């Protein structure tokens, strides 16, 4: 007898990954296990008037640990006990980071926006005393000062750092290991020591007095390692075949670099520069040691006091009056917005999506 092959199609499973389905019992257990400790904790907070932090650690965490290990037993059997505890601990500690971040961001945004107004952005502080109201004066001069000081260090540092990254990746120089070690060492340089270095080199020696360009110099050792390390990574990501192909076709090292490697690594290099700028734009200590505060706009970076956003913030915090601290919050918000713009720009530049779009 001939066997007939059954050609009726098998019904396909509705879900492509049936093993991820969660049964109703499991769902219910999870919901109950995560609700009960919260409710008990709330009861302690409201009825027993317990301190939030003490309650969180003494009541909520142990209860949640017990309830999630019970849920673990119900769902997975005995080996679920430690799993439940571990998930609880991870989420608990992880959410702490989130809470801290939100607390910082919320404080800056709330208090900063209370200070922020159009004239706060563009006016300077010529007629401002520590107790002057917020209707006059602002961070205009500090924003300009930051742009000048950070701009000058960027102009000096970026070519230097990129050329160093090129030396580390494109040449077969003998001292690559040494340079890499030194960059590593420099990236650990405390910012205040960088300020002391420039101070002892230029200001104690009497070569110059406090000025914007001295501050820019103090930022260079902080920016250089960041930019060259990220740039080195970016250049390293360019496949060796591309380079060898260009060289095999007879290109000189320079044209292979400028026409093949550089375009391929462009977005990575832009990211390197942006990260470097973001690294130094909020640096306070080196600028405190090398520039002096001014309350009027100073566009001359070569001499005279110049305010930058971090030193402005520092100065007004140290004055300690309510209104001066208000001003400092405003400056913090402006600084955070600047850093945020740089941060997002670096993200956009380094994301593979935008690189594809450009093609």
């Amino acid at each position, binding site marked *: 007898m001939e066997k007939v092959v059954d050609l009726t199609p098998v019904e396909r499973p509705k879900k492509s990954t049936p093993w991820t389905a969660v049964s109703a019992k499991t769902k219910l257990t999870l919901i109950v296990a995560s609700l009960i400790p919260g409710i008990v904790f709330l009861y302690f907070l409201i009825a027993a008037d317990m*301190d939030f*932090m003490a309650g969180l650690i003494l009541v909520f965490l142990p209860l949640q640990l017990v309830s999630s290990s019970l849920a673990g037993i119900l769902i997975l059997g005995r*080996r679920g006990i*430690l799993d439940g*505890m*571990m*998930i609880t*601990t*991870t989420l608990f500690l*992880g959410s*702490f*980071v989130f809470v*801290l*971040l939100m*607390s*910082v961001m919320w*404080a*800056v945004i709330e208090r900063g926006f209370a200070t922020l107004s159009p004239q706060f952005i563009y006016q300077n502080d010529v007629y401002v005393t520590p107790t002057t109201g917020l209707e006059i004066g602002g961070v205009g001069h500090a924003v300009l000062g930051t742009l000048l000081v950070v701009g000058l260090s960027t102009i000096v540092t970026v*070519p*230097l750092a990129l050329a*160093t990254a*090129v*030396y580390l990746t494109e040449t077969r*120089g003998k*001292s690559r290991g040494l*340079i890499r070690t*030194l960059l*590593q*060492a*420099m990236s*650990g*340089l*405390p910012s*205040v*020591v960088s300020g*002391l*270095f420039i101070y*002892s080199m230029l200001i*104690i020696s009497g070569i110059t007095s406090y000025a914007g360009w001295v501050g820019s110099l103090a930022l260079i*050792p902080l920016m*250089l390692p960041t930019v060259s390390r990220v740039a080195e990574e970016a250049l390293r990501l360019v496949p060796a075949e591309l380079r060898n192909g260009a060289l095999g076709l007879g290109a*000189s*090292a320079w*044209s292979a670099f400028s026409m093949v490697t550089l375009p391929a690594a462009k977005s990575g290099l832009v990211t390197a520069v942006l990260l470097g700028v973001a690294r130094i*734009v*909020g640096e*306070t*200590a080196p600028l*405190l*040691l090398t520039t002096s505060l001014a309350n009027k706009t100073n566009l001359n970076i070569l001499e005279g006091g110049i305010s930058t956003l*971090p030193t402005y*913030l520092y100065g007004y*915090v140290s004055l300690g009056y309510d209104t001066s601290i208000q001003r*400092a*919050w405003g400056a*913090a918000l402006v*600084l*955070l917005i600047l*850093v*945020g713009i740089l941060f997002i720009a670096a993200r956009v530049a380094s994301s593979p999506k935008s690189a594809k779009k450009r093609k």
Partner: protein
Amino acid sequence: MSELIEVVPPKRKLKVKASSTSDRVFYGISTAAAYSTIFLVVAILFFLSVRAWPTFERFGVINFVFGSGWDNTLENPSFAIGPMLYGSFLIAGIGVLFAVPMAISIAYFIEFMAAKPIAKATAFLVDLLAAIPSVVIGIWGLTIFSSVGAHWGEMLHNALGFLPMFENDAGNFLRTPFIAGIIVSVMIVPIIASITREIFSQIDKDLISASLALGGNRESTFRKVILPTASGGIIGGVLLALGRALGETVAIFFVLNLVFNEVNWFRIVLPEGGAIASLILAKFADATADEISALLAAGVVLFVFTLIINSIASYIVVKAQPWRK
């Protein structure tokens, strides 16, 4: 034997040296830039040491580093940074103690627990925390966190005051090493978290699957497979963060009461503490010439310590990733 005869004369000589002018300029510029790095580091060490030398000569290195007292009003001013140096390490230690569990948790959450979009968003938030300038965290610590932290310190004192660690006879819980330590931990969490995440993401997925196939659960996989594989990288990350914590200046200066005369060994909720970087900032504004030299010497000591810690850290991080060339 006769000499080898070149049958086809080569058009280009095969040598490593650059042949065209543009190449020579290209190599020249990059080499010059790289060597300027050496120059910069040598200059930093040279100028700091030259200015700091009188202090080291006068007080002796050991006395200056481990002695205590900082007074420029005396006939014979005395400068020593023992309490500051120890205080730096105490604060950094508290910071690391708080930061490590949080950082490992969030790295584990991102790599092994969360769904992809949530993991991406969390990683973004952690990077965002890393981007916040330390002076902004400083003003947050001063105006918002200090009172909260003082309250926590007071609770610790009330509950566990019989332990010498939580002694406090000042009746005031503001400006303590405890608060400064937590502020520092906010700054170093993203550093440790990103390095840990990097290491976690490079762990061979087959190892984890093997552990699960052998009947391991989430917890035993973490304890017996993930953690041992990643421990080197985590320790390296912690040391890098420690270096950063030691060099933290402004934020600590805002929230810590500096005491120069005696070392606060372990009483973390007492408003007495020290930090070298903050010392430099605190004493710089109205320093005498002798004092400037002493501050520079303090800077040298700080640099040496961070240099040692960073070198160990980067060595460990590289060793921990043998798969990376």
